[in-house]
């Protein structure tokens, strides 16, 4: 494995496409693309950065667990393999999951489907309602809960 390589290789990207599409499949009814959507996949690949080695390791381990033919498995088998591998933990699959989710949940189509504005928080910000301050009335009249050391140590 070349630790100095700056990006995933073509075979790795092919593997990533299948794996990402298994992890987060498209849902037409919800208007959600899959994580194997070309735009999202490009964002995932672009964002690998410091996690490159871990992501490579995760891709290789998934392929190894499937006998080198992850794409040939049926959908149930692919999902079971991914969920089992993820549940077992480890830095590699956690990094891959974090990378895919981080890119997927900033895609315009995904955010719009979730009724979110597809934008950065700054500079517009968001509105936070005041809430019901009268709820505090039940607390205001309580006796002090904190211990006054001056009184306790004086006795």
């Amino acid at each position, binding site marked *: 494995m070349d630790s100095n390589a700056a990006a995933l290789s073509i075979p790795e990207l092919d593997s990533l496409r299948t794996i990402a599409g*298994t*992890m*987060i*499949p498209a*849902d037409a009814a*919800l208007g*959600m693309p899959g994580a194997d959507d070309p735009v999202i996949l490009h964002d995932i690949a672009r*964002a690998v*950065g*410091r996690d490159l080695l871990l992501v490579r390791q995760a891709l290789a381990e998934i392929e190894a667990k499937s006998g080198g033919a992850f794409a040939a498995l049926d*959908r149930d088998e*692919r*999902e079971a393999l*991914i*969920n089992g591998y*993820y*549940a077992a933990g480890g830095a590699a699959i956690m990094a891959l*999951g*974090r990378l895919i*989710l*981080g*890119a*997927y*949940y*900033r895609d315009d189509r*995904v*955010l719009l489907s*979730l009724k*979110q504005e597809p*934008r*950065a*928080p*700054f*500079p*517009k*910000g*968001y*509105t*936070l*309602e*005041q*809430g*019901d*301050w009268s*709820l*505090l009335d*039940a*607390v*205001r009249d*309580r*006796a*002090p*809960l*904190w*211990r*006054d*050391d*001056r009184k*306790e*140590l004086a006795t």
Partner: protein
Amino acid sequence: MSGNERVDVLIIGSGASGAAVAWSLAETKMRILCLEQGDWMKPTDFPTNGRDWEARRYGDFDIFPNRRGRDTDYPVNDDNSPMKVANFNGVGGGTVIYTAHWPRMHPSDFKVKSLDGVADDWPIDYWTLERFYEENDRMMGVSGLAGDPGVPPRNPPMPPIPLGKTGSHYGKAMNKLGWHWWPSDTTIATTPYEGRAQCINLGHCTPGCAQGAKASTDITYWPLAIRAGVELRTRCRVREITTDEHGMASGAIYYDAEGKEQFQPAEVVIVACNGVGTPRLLLNSASGKFPNGLANSSGLVGKNLMLHPWPMISGYVEETLDGGKAPITNLWSKEFYETDRSRGFVRGYTLQFNRGMGPANQAITSAASGQLPWGRDHHRVYREMFEHRVGIGVACDDLPEEHNRVTLDPVLKDSNGIPAPKIDYAISDNTRRMMDHGIARAEEILTAAGATRLYCSRAALNSPGHLLGTCRMGTDPERSVVTEWGRSHDVKNLFIVDGSVFVTGGGVNPTSTIQATALYIADQMKQRLGNLFD
């Protein structure tokens, strides 16, 4: 090695405490220099400027230096600790990457030996620090609501952050249980304040505030200190504090931005590098006269590390709440803060109520907890969670134990070749019982709030630690590293002003107390300028 002009006061570290002490001492008109290993932060660099704002908290704005890995960071070997070191290296230090949750320690926290028969009392008390807490609240700009029966009286200068839907939901549950709750004090400005704009809710602002509404010392103390004549030199990583033939500190050797070794002579040296960085520096300053590290005749430099174990309990309600569209800080509860031996442990904890998460963090967090599946069920489950999350942190008071410590790693070094710190930390039985109690109470609260899918992340899951206690203050030179006013027992012109000097840590975020203590020590120094070294 290059030489520099001698200064009266050399401060090492520009974070919470270094900034406060620099500002306070500036009125003496002494020549004051601060060396900071990191850079100034630019508002345009903060994550919420971009669409990748959530992902960057796992990258260049991660709270863990080992993952963040900036070239201004130093590595920490925390393999032998269930909790990881949280810090930031830059002007403002840890106040750049923090939640801005702003509780004070309680009066009882300073007197645990006298009141509860455990650990040690501080040599000073809450009431000594009270006016410095107040001064610091004005300087940092605190938002909150007076009248809280859970804490001693205080008057935050700005109104609290809105309860929002999430806070109201929590409040109803807490009232149902009859337990204390109150909107948290925070250093997030809710009105225009001293040149800072008020918060417009840029989402979770732990990784820095693009708008400048969240206080960090680079935008609070430092502009005033610099205007008053203090010099702040960035990209200067101190390797060691030097001493002269009389055993007095003579200055510091540091590496500048080009990696060139420099010597900075000084009449007084103040260390403000946090509870891990400070013992690291003192241990790296060993010499023939101080073979076990500088200021370490007690052998306590690096020992008694406290990190605040912090279980997180989360769940999901049917009602749509605030999600991640506002600061995470929401409410606190002091119901279980003070000692009640019937609970099976001494001391106590704060319950910290959080808002939800943004879209990506919601997915990352719930996937990591095993609650969000991969595959065809992913979207259905995600939609039941997003903007429905409630979560409570249990901020536990971990009492000091000498085996919890910072030492120098025999192998690991930073980019300048300076030995890195190694952390050894284990959670005590008392703290474990406290954690279990807090987890059970949090689950009761979330259940009362109508939450399901409860999930507990115990402190063992890489939770970030506060850094306290490794150069404790006291009157006995054999049982403490610095005096009750922050001066080394061994080196009469060496001071420590950060969380290292804590004798106990309480069950609260410590920054408010760190800065109040730094202001107190600076005040003591100013009162003793005529005989500072006696």
